[in-house]
């Protein structure tokens, strides 16, 4: 990840804490040491990203990379994606959808809404770990814009 003055924060929205922990571990193994901010539900994540007033001003000037699971207990990941991509402050932040669903319509929908990457969680753990490590490597070379 770019080693510029403002460090990139990875916002991880994943309701399964185990998954979250495994994702974190494997990203770290890829040599990514950025701050990871985990959320286990959509509501808290949206409050963090858009602020209590939903304006998104809290994110102004942040460098964010969002890891988003679609299956959340309170709000669907699709809704979160839509809100983030429609907000002037967060719309440029890359969103990586990382979910179990491989439904073609769902994938299409996410890209239509502006998702940057869609990754289906591999079924078995080895593949899963491998995929996350590669994602970490990808993060390491990726440019993340500063939000305005």
């Amino acid at each position, binding site marked *: 990840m770019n080693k510029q003055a403002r460090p990139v924060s990875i916002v991880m929205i994943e309701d*399964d804490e*185990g*998954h979250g922990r*495994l994702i974190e*571990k494997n990203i770290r193994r890829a040599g990514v040491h950025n701050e990871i901010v985990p959320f286990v539900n959509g509501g808290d994540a949206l409050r963090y990203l858009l602020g209590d007033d939903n304006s998104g001003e809290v994110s102004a000037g942040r460098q964010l990379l969002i890891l988003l699971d679609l*299956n959340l207990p309170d709000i669907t990941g699709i809704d979160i994606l839509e809100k983030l991509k429609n907000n002037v402050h967060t719309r440029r932040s890359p969103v990586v959808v990382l979910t*179990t*669903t491989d*439904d073609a319509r769902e994938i299409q929908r996410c890209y239509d809404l502006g998702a940057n990457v869609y990754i289906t*969680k591999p*079924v*078995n*753990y*080895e593949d*899963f*770990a491998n995929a996350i490590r590669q994602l970490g490597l990808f993060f390491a070379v990726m440019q993340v814009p500063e939000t305005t």
Partner: protein
Amino acid sequence: MPISSLSFVRVTILSILIGLAALLAIVAVNLWLVRQAAVYSATVAIATGERAAIVELRNTLDDAETGQRGYLLTDGNQAYLAPYNEARRRVRENRDRLAALTKNDPAMANDVAKLIPITDAKLAELQKTIDLFSAGQREASLKLVNTDLGKRLMDEARELFATMVGRSEARIDAATQSQKDSIDALQWVTIGGALVILLVVGGSVWAVFSYTGQLEQARKEVSTLNVNLEQRVRERTADLGRANEEIQRFAYIVTHDLRAPLVNIMGFTSELETSLASIQSYIKQHIDEAAHDEVAKQAQIAVLEEVPEAVSFIRSSTRKMDGLINAILKLSREGRRALRPEWISLDTLFKTAAANLQHQIDDAGGAVNIDTRVSTLVSDRMALEQIVGNLLDNAVKYRAPDRALRIQIRAHETRGQRIIVEVEDNGRGIAARDHERVFDLFRRSGAQDTPGEGIGLAHVRSMVRNLGGEITLRSQIEQGTTMQLNLPRDLRAILATQTGAA
């Protein structure tokens, strides 16, 4: 009152018989009455003839007496003798005629027999007076007249004539009355018969109309039922489709939800192994120190043997579970896949499927025989290829080791726009108790000597059902198995009803 076809036939036949009987009765009575009328007419004719003869005889007798009186009164005027003689001759003639007419009638014959001596006597008396008068014995002649013998005879004859005429007239009256009666009877019988025929015809017409009405009603009901039935079938199909969809959605959700914790278990097992590896290397470095320390020794055993064993069990179990969940996922995904109906040549499809397995079939020394009597059908190619491939795969996999593999693929049409596809092998067969079970998920039959998860046939059945078909099997253990697919000729029609009813 509903009329059954049997009772309708009975009623109709009965009506026809009754009508026929009435007609026959009318004809018979008519014939009889005509005969009677002839008899009565004959009787009347005879009686009239008799009467005329009697009256004629009486008149001629009167004429004879009148001639005699005229002769005597005119003192022998010969002009009166001629009518007398003429009458006298005719009296005999008429008497003979009457005797001839009445010879078959005892009462009349009896009277005629009585009449003969009287008329003879009367004629004799007349002749005698005339003879006496002619001989000049006028006094004797008149005296003879005055004896009243002639008058007495004449009175007797008149009385007999009256009796006979009365009898004849009575006969004529009786015959006429009988004839009138029989004409009346004929009229009544005809009217009665006509009424019966009218009733029967009316009844028959009513029966025909009411039966036809009921038939029409029944036909309407049947067609209504048919429509309802079709509607119900559509509803049921839609229900089934929905249920199937629901199960697949359920399976999809369940598998996803099950998989999430499983990934955790597998992931953290991996983490555990990684951590264990570092502990193990540490323990190995300090292995000598542990030799004398009991606690260290136990820790060494735990880290080097027990924990790795436990971890490996966790791993193998989760891997197995992962396999099972993936199988369910595969099934549900197959069910969710949108079907693409297209024209498929069954023969080509079979040949391709056989060619894909040619290597294994050759290894088993086997042969595939394809007999396709249906050129094309409209279905989902991918699903059909998988189904046939899977069935062939099973035929090869579960062949009998002691005989050369023979696979027979057949396809033919059947009623209701359906197509039957059969894949028959001479393999080890499936025990009767497992005929249904083999289609269940994770269930297998027979010796578990070949690798497999018990997914294939469950998957096949799921796909066949998605194609609007059904799969059944016939099998004899140690003889072979025939898998039979019953597929719609046109998948589009099935999909149309499903979406149409949903």
